[in-house]
């Protein structure tokens, strides 16, 4: 296991380097500057600004300076939010997205696996059809439709929850965004679980277990659930990173100070350092959670050993 972890760490270094290099140059080649505005700035003022942010230096020099700083954990000043460093912005925004994302993920995982299993066990009955068509609705209903509907019903008409805001993550502010975000994942988890569970229930070892006269619920919980979870676990890694690094749509609609919105705005604003900083963080999280999934898979699947 130690060797496996060491191998993943060594593999991660070139991956991160490629990620940083590609995004650094892509960002620099995007048309427009972080400091362009409706009123084009006189050249002299533009020069002063470029000098302040080191943009007057050759690109390769900017790149090496950036890399040196990143290695030391300094993601630089934000070009747009001039009163903050990228480290400060990311440290403030990531926990917001992670909190909402984690709740949404747990909610989605629990309900998704439960209803997927029920549907599989009642395959081709009305229960299956009801559950799966609702799940389908969850997949096809985009969050930019679902979230405003939730706001309309629960905020404007019933007044149960606020229509937006965060207020340090108090519970009432989290309910609607979590629901809005989890729905799609509930549906996806349910579909993956159902398919995998049906396949598992039809495999020879389950038939053997049945022939031995074991009770059906014992077979499902003891023998079928674990192998049926394999595709769910594989999906969990990227899904978890996706969900905790924020949804632009949900964060925009609910006015949440999360990292998804920060990322997209940074790209629109050509806030080079902020885009780079968030890319690095998200890239790192992807590598980390994929490694965790691999370890989990080894635990779930006896065929995999490191």
């Amino acid at each position, binding site marked *: 296991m130690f060797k496996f972890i060491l191998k993943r760490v060594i593999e991660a270094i070139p991956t991160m380097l490629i990620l940083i290099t590609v995004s650094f140059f892509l960002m620099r080649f995007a048309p427009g500057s972080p400091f362009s505005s409706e009123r084009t700035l*006189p050249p002299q003022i533009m020069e*002063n600004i470029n000098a302040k942010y080191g943009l007057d230096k050759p690109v390769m020099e900017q790149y090496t300076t950036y890399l040196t700083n990143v290695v030391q954990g300094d993601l630089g000043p934000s070009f747009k939010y001039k009163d903050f460093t990228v480290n400060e912005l990311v440290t403030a925004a990531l926990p917001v997205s992670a909190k909402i994302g984690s709740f949404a993920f747990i909610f989605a995982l629990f309900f998704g696996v439960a209803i997927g299993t029920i549907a599989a066990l009642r395959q081709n009955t009305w229960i299956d059809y009801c559950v799966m068509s609702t799940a389908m609705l969850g997949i096809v209903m985009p969050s930019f439709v679902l979230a405003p509907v939730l706001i309309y019903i629960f905020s404007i008409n019933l007044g149960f929850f606020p229509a*937006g805001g*965060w207020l340090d993550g108090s519970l009432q502010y989290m309910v609607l965004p979590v629901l809005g975000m989890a729905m799609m994942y509930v549906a996806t988890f349910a579909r993956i679980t159902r398919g995998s569970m049906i396949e598992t229930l039809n495999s020879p070892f389950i038939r053997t277990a049945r022939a031995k006269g074991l009770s059906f619920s014992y077979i499902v919980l003891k023998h079928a659930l674990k192998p049926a979870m394999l595709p769910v676990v594989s999906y969990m890694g990227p899904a978890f990173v996706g969900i905790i690094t924020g949804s632009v749509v949900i964060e925009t609609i609910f006015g949440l100070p999360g990292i998804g919105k920060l990322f997209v705005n940074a790209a629109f604003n050509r806030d080079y350092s902020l885009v780079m900083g968030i890319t690095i963080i998200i890239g790192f999280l992807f590598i980390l959670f994929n490694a965790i999934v691999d370890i989990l898979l080894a635990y779930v699947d006896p065929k995999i050993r490191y």
Partner: protein
Amino acid sequence: MYKNKITQALLLATGISFAATSFTTLAANVPDGVKLAAKQELVRGNGTEVASLDPQKTQGVPESHVIRDLLEGLVNQDAEGNIIPGVAKSWETADNKTFTFHLRKNAKWSNGDSVTAHDFVYSFQRAVDPATASPYAWYLDMTTMTNASDIIAGKKDKSALGVKAVDDYTFEVHLESAVPYFVMMMGHTTVKPVHRATVEKFGDEWTKPENFVGNGAFLVSNWVVNERIEMTPNEYYWDNAKTVLTKVTYLPIENQVSEMNRFFSGELDFTYEISNEHFKNLQKEHPESLAIKGSLCTYYYNFNTHKPPFDDLRVRKAVSYAINRNVVANILLGQGQKPAYFLTPEIISDFSPELPAYGKMTQKERDTKAQALLAAAGYNQSNPLKFSLLYNTSENHKKLAVAIGSMWKKTLGAEVTLENQEWKTYLQSKKQGDFEAARAGWCGDYNEPSTFTSLMEGSNTTGGIHYKSAEYDDLIKRGIETTSASERKELYYAQEALLAKDMPLAPIYQYVQTRLVNPHVGGYAGNNAEDKLYSKDMYIIAE
């Protein structure tokens, strides 16, 4: 929960308009008979997240709204947009070149220090200092402040700037040219003072709530990027006794529909704007909350006069004449916008732009004239006029571009390619002259025509570089140099007339500012053309 109670709203609205018309307030003056709510907390929608709270580092409207509450400059504006004393209680000038401001002695920073002339000297120098890299440094250059342009260019030290603290409470400014509207320009965000010791101690961190020292009516108490900025009254503010609100919150909500939802769920007292799509519906269902006022902004299409086909004056005129501005303003927009035939909007103070000859024609006459001009330029059915119209991605710009494109097609047989680009790409294309016709808009930095007409001056990188007319530049220069107010006004008329003659741009409409304002908000400045809303002038009326 917000309820649609029309009768109650009308009564309240009457109260508000009474407040707005009866009092020229220096701070929240609550009219007799108005019962204040127990909770005096105001929540304002503010569009996008502010780039900074440092007045010398910002350039946007959302930043100006927040900073207006936190820092006070030499002058303020009243609800009608008139200049009233701020930190300066009076001022004088003999020649419009040297201005002396007498500062009030009771003006204090939030740490108890006095606000002195030295603070203004420091802040003005900081704005032009290349090390500050202020995006609005050009604003001081525009006032013709002595040596401003050389300091920005790094040719002179910032101490050479034409500002002086005669004593602690007398601040003197020297200009290279006579600028009679200079005092008006001192209401801008860029020339707000900052507390030197705090800035020097904390550097870029000085605006953080734990470090912030300001001289405005409010103090920043909490700042969550992309969520909220909260403020509480500054007890050291010289006029704090008149501040009614106990808390002000700014919410950066970019999505207009989200903002509207939060307004109707009772979380916002007024919005930053409203979406065009919802306007008619809101007008019908919530007239009591709809606040519409004229705005100091003009929407226009810029022509690149250095590139075919718009290097031909006849083409520029034909294309401009064929825009049916009444349809755009009254039907496509329909919120009270006015057609524009001039760059300077009519709402500007002390100047009434003259309707040029083509503005006096009927649309039918304009169309006929446009067709004749285009034919003279050599375009016809077998050789139709082809060009592209660039705009930045936005539903509203697209809607207008499609409609105006079809007017051009119908009247001129022109084949127009609509090209939308994301904001920064669009700015880049415009800057490099990589366009034929492009959407643009401008809002005045101060309430005087030069904030608009100077846009087309040849060195102005926003508009003038695609025009470059020696005759126009000369008119601008004379406008700055003249010492006579009446002559200056004549020169503004001449500038507008030349723009109508050369048509480097096609003015389209004059903006309005539309908002949802909860009727319980008192003191909302519904007639301030520059939208300078001071939270210190507002209060919450009991429901």
